């Protein structure tokens, strides 16, 4: 069916090629520039009568079209006045200049499902051209937006191909932390993505991949960046108002390419990219490590005899001539690798306003820099538009993509198997089936095969029965399915092979019917735009797994036969059946394009809202004053553009699930009379009063442009309050239920955003330079907690002991740590309890080893009882960056161009948990349990002898280490500055001379080399301050980010 559809497109394209007119044709060429002599790309060239499009200009403004002689050419480009050029006989070269209407302002943006001139927007919208992200191949293009939009904080904290890091617009929107210890993660609050007018919720898939089970790819990573025409980021409540039922975290609109050239364009992009392993962690190897261990035992064991015994009992130390132990294995080298990858994309498009089409075919293959990981993506994106008359339009999209990825033994973001294995002592032999390093081996040889398919079909119809009234109906069906087959051979799983199968599917039906009315009076003095729509969504999701243990042998990698005693499976409890209905209306009034007032109101009902108040009512208001339109401002010559706008509005995002409202039944583990029974699940009490999370936002902005708009500046301030955040709270045990979910939590974000664009006038027209910079200062504050308390400490049940502390008025995601002040140089420096005469000690039962002595860490005793315990924890730091932003440059000289992009994250604290992990390996010098890799102590200033003024406490006193725990995870010793400036990417491109390429039948060709993730400037002691979880913890099991170098080529026929 699908193939048929595509075929019909191709046939249509071929027909169009034949259709090229046979009248007397002349070849016209030339270049279109703006008044600064910068070439204007993408200018539509058409012939006036009979009216039809004949082509477009290249990126540098050059064009070459074949048109009937004596016709009139019409050049059109948004933001510029149309230009008419009658052809004069004999002249075939035209170098023309197009007059700019005020630079950015005349662009149109699709906001709230309506095409709107930028000058009438009251909300905050930032647009990015797809071109800006197309030179870097990426499994998930969202990572390329880093540092490009003020207020959009993207942290690419996983290098797993196709997976996405964390993303938050104008600060986090949820303070809930689930999981514990190393696996604690923040509830993701990614903005809503709207692809070609259809919302796609990114959070569901993302959250899912994190937690385990599926392949972890989201629908967003199934879109090839080459097919993206533009990306619009809607930041405030007015801009997102009409996406309200999910828009509380902001909205990112993605528009894919359309055909708009009568001459069909075939564009081929090929990229070969080389992924390099970034800096890894330093460890001691071989003999150095063995002697370090021996020395440690000799110096610190209880007696010398015990030390000798311990050494002699440990073959890893004593049997050093045995080839099994005589190693210096560089574990990291077995798991990290450099890879060569490729990406190809073919884009065929053409047509004019009455009929146009696009077919985009993509192939992307990336092997991860961790062994046994990778992503292959096959995509086919098509659309067509048919507009026989001005009154009627039909548009259809059919997109299908398939991805196949492997995450080895880890999950979408974490590689815990690899994390632990690279943390292994170098004395162990390299992984092989004879050496027993099963975890390492399984990371390398588990057969993890994931497939994800995404099928989108969409039809949109528009009809304008009377001038000014336009009815639109959009119907979208999306089917997203993924499977996972993971086979662990029997050798690696205690002689029982393990087959894990996972299958999920999500289908979604979306429909929107809208009616728009536009009316202007008195030659445009008054402009009124009314718009109303209803929206409906139905989503079903269901995931099933089976865990089959003990197949006949390793050749049977399917569930043909298995050991039923240990096998299990079934439907996962995250199945959803979601429905939502919304009604929305908006009205916009503009007076002389000077004053613009806009209001929207929407009513949303979702199935995850409790029956007590099923509807949410969300208003929004926006005001805009185009100062430059005022009479007095027209005379100010230096000021090209100035405006003020402000908005207020409220949005919601559904949270929770049907089961949170009405409860779960579960199958009991025990039986009654040998028959299975069901009972109420007593974990969460049902609560029919649940409501969606709402976000109320105030936002104001000032924009101005000076020096002929060469310098433009935008300042925005915002205050956003996220209320009714869903959070579980424990209730008294006489309630039968353990917890109840409520909407009592609130969070506030406020901050400032700055954007600056500078395009200096170059004396030499061959040169062209653009500089853009943006920065955002954001603060998050907890505003309300369940039961009206002012503070809540959420304990962490794990050995990491990293609780979360929420306190009203403070940043919600700080750290709860013991305050480390340095090292006790001598025994006498340890304070003595005047009451008991005992030294300051670590908490727990009194034992000699718990008393602090020379070389031990000096932790602040907050409550002054000379015992270090949980009463001495302090609340410090902020794991969320306060300042984020970036800057980028574009330099062009003749055919050469250079693009660079930087991003920065400032004022952020991170916890170097990975370093803690590695220091903690010193607790077991004899390697009785798990012998971990040893950190070289010379690199860190570690206390070794009495009187050493060291930065790090004594790590070697292994008999006492478990008692006083100097290298505890929750210590400010490992709290570091996570600020960084990252050189994200640079691209050097060369555009071939068209006259030369034309000889080979190529209308334009461009070669480029680019680098991604080039350098990170920071003061962090770990490898990468960006590679931390959303909670600011540098976990050992993170997937390092690749550094990639690309050689790419764009050819257009």
């Amino acid at each position, binding site marked *: 069916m699908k193939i048929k559809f595509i075929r019909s497109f191709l046939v249509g394209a071929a027909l169009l090629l034949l259709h090229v007119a046979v009248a007397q044709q002349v070849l016209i060429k030339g270049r279109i520039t703006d008044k600064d002599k910068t070439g204007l790309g993408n200018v539509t060239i058409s012939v006036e009568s009979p009216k039809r499009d004949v082509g477009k200009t290249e990126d540098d403004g050059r064009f070459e079209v074949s048109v009937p002689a004596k016709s009139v050419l019409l050049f059109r480009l948004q933001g510029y006045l149309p230009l008419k050029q009658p052809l004069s006989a004999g002249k075939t070269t035209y170098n023309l200049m197009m007059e700019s209407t005020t630079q950015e302002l005349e662009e149109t943006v699709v906001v709230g499902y309506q095409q709107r001139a930028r000058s009438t927007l009251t909300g905050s919208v930032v647009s990015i051209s797809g071109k800006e992200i197309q030179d870097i191949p990426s499994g998930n293009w969202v990572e390329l937006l880093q540092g490009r939009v003020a207020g959009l904080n993207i942290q690419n904290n996983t290098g797993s191909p196709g997976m996405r890091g964390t993303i938050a617009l104008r600060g986090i929107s949820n303070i809930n932390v689930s999981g514990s210890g190393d696996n604690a993660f923040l509830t993701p609050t990614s903005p809503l993505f709207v692809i070609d007018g259809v919302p796609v919720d990114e959070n569901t898939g993302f959250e899912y991949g994190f937690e385990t089970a599926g392949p972890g790819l989201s629908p967003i990573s199934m879109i090839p960046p080459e097919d993206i025409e533009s990306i619009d980021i809607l930041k405030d409540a007015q801009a997102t108002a009409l996406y309200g039922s999910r828009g509380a975290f902001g909205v990112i609109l993605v528009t894919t390419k359309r055909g708009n050239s009568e001459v069909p364009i075939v564009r081929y992009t090929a990229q070969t990219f080389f992924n390099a392993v970034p800096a890894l962690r330093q460890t001691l190897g071989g003999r150095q490590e063995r002697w370090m261990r021996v020395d440690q035992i000799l110096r610190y064991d209880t007696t010398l005899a015990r030390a000798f015994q311990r050494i002699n009992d440990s073959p890893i130390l004593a049997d050093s001539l045995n080839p099994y132990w005589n190693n210096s294995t560089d574990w990291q080298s077995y798991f990290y690798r450099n890879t060569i990858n490729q990406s190809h994309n073919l884009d065929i498009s053409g047509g004019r306003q009455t009929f146009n089409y696009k077919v985009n075919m993509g192939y992307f293959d990336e092997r991860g820099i961790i062994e046994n990981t990778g992503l292959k993506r096959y995509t086919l994106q098509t659309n067509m538009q048919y507009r026989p008359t001005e009154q009627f339009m039909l548009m259809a999209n059919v997109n299908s993509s398939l991805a196949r990825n492997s995450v080895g033994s880890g999950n979408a973001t974490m590689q815990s198997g690899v994390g632990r294995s690279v943390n292994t002592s170098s004395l162990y032999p390299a992984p092989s089936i004879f050496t027993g390093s099963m975890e390492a081996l399984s990371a390398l040889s588990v057969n993890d095969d994931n497939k994800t398919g995404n099928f989108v079909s969409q039809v949109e119809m528009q009809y304008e029965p009377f001038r000014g009234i336009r009815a639109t109906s959009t119907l979208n069906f999306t089917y997203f399915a993924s499977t996972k087959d993971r086979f662990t051979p029997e050798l690696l799983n205690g002689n029982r092979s393990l087959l894990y199968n996972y299958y999920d599917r999500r289908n979604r039906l979306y429909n929107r019917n809208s009616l728009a009315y536009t009316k202007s009076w008195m030659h445009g003095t008054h402009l009124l735009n009314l718009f109303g729509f209803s929206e409906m969504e139905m989503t079903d999701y269901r995931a099933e797994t089976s865990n089959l243990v003990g197949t006949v042998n390793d050749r049977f990698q399917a569930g043909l036969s298995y050991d039923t005693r240990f096998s299990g499976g079934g439907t996962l409890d995250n199945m959803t059946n979601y429905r939502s209905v919304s009604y929305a209306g908006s009205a916009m009034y503009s007076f002389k394009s000077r004053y613009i007032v806009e209001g929207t109101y929407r009513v949303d009902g979702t199935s995850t809202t409790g029956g007590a108040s099923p509807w949410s009512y969300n208003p929004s208001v926006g005001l805009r004053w185009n*100062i430059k339109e*005022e009479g*007095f*401002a027209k*005379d100010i010559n230096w000021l090209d553009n*100035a405006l*003020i706008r*402000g908005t207020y509005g409220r949005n919601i995002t559904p949270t929770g699930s049907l089961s949170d409202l009405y409860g779960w039944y579960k199958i009991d583990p025990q039986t009654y009379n040998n028959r299975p029974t069901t009972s109420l699940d007593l974990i969460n009490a049902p609560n029919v009063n649940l409501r969606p999370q709402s976000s109320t936002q*105030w*936002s*104001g902005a*000032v924009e101005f442009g000076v020096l002929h708009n060469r310098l433009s500046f935008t*300042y925005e*301030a*915002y*205050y956003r*309050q996220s209320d009714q955040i869903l959070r579980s709270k424990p209730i008294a045990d006489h309630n039968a239920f353990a917890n109840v979910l409520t909407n009592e939590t609130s969070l*506030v974000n*406020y901050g400032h955003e700055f954007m600056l664009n500078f395009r200096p006038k170059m004396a030499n027209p061959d040169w062209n330079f653009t500089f853009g910079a943006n920065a955002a200062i954001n603060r998050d*504050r*907890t*505003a*309300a907690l369940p039961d009206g*308390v*002012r*503070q*809540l*400490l*959420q*304990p962490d049940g794990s050995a990491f002991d990293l609780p979360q502390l929420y*306190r*009203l*008025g*403070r940043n919600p995601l700080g750290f709860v740590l013991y305050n480390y002040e340095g090292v006790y140089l001598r025994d*006498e420096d*340890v304070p*003595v*309890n*005047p*009451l*008991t*005469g*005992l*030294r300051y000690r670590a908490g727990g039962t009194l034992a*000699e080893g718990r*008393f602090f002595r020379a070389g031990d860490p000096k932790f602040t005793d*907050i*409550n*002054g*009882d000379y*015992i270090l315990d949980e*009463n001495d*924890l302090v609340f410090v730091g902020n794991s969320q960056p306060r300042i984020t932003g970036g800057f980028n440059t574009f330099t062009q000289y003749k055919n050469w161009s250079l693009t660079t992009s930087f991003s920065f994250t400032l004022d952020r604290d991170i916890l170097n948990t990975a370093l803690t992990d590695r220091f903690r390996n010193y607790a077991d010098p004899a390697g009785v349990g798990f012998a971990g890799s040893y950190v070289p102590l010379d690199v860190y200033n570690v206390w070794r002898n009495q009187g050493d003024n060291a930065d790090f406490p004594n790590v070697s006193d292994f008999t006492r280490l478990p008692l006083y725990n100097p290298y505890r995870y929750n210590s400010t010793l490992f709290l570091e500055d996570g600020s960084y400036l990252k050189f994200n990417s640079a691209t050097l491109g060369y555009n071939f001379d068209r006259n030369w390429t034309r000889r080979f039948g190529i209308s334009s060709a461009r070669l480029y080399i680019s680098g991604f993730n080039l350098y990170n400037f920071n003061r962090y002691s770990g490898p990468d301050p960006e590679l931390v979880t959303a909670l600011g913890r540098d976990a050992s099991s993170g997937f390092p980010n690749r550094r990639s170098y690309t050689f790419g080529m764009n050819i257009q026929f």
Partner: protein
Amino acid sequence: MKLAKHRIHTLVVILTTSCLFGCTKYIPDDRDSFGEDISYNVTEFSPTIGRSTFYNDIVSVGPNTSQPLTFRIVNLKDADGQPVSTLFSDKFPVKVWRQMYDGTESSIEEIEAKRVVEYRPILEILEHSGNINFWNAGSSSYIRTQPDSGYTFDVEVSNSGGRRYVRGFRLKPQRERPYEPTDVDPETGLSLSPHGFASYVRGMLGQRTRGGIPASAIRVYIRKLENMPATTSKTLTLSFLDSLLNPIDPRNFNDTDWAHMVHGFNRRIEDNKVIYDVAYPIPLTRVETRYTSVGGEMARLDIGYRQRDVFGDIVRASFGYNFRIFEEGHWEIQFRFMGETPAFN
């Protein structure tokens, strides 16, 4: 024109400031949180007068309260509800530690250098931990002791987020019992018998019957020697009486580690008594040293000698006594062998 410019300027200022400052007022202040979840695990205190008693770990602070907290004792009243005049506000000299006592000190001076005299109220609360101390000062002559209901007080807990009173604490001191083990009744101050017994006996044979001496046959009398010369250093005297109440020469206990039995100095034998110069209380603090029992709670005496057992082997026979003495002074511990005198051969 100028006016217009001005107007823009003011508007910009108003718009931005109104948003920034107008909005931040909705954000709660960042001040300490004071929850309902602070509680004391102990509300009735019955310390013994003359002993420093430290009630540690008696406060639980829940997840809704910010630390550090400040604690204060208020509303001290006697059981009749009358305010107590100055008893608990007066400060008494007590010895507090400056450096850690670890049992390796080689002179009284070295021990005393590690502690200093400070003036503290008898009933004291530690400012940030809420732990309650009852110092070894005062006397039952003016402190109400059980069976009197004693005193009541409240604890004021505060941080910058608020304050709360934890009410209904009772202080019911017990009268002095200057040493342990003792069977002095805390209410009456009377004891059932004037002596205790040895903690253990190992293989001691009696002279008379060559039978074993049980622990119950070794009576231990602890008494304070009142009319000793006034010297700066206090003493601990050990003496032994046979079944006829004649003194036994301590040298007979020839397998006794006299030098390391008591953390005392200047050991001498006078009138068949072993005398040490010691620092009080004994043990000085609850830390395990070579002079204490396991855990460091009691001082440990182990007195032994070589004897020929019933099979003719020379073996070590010993008896021991674990004790504590709280009151400073010249104390004597006297062991009386009842019925049987050890057979020293």
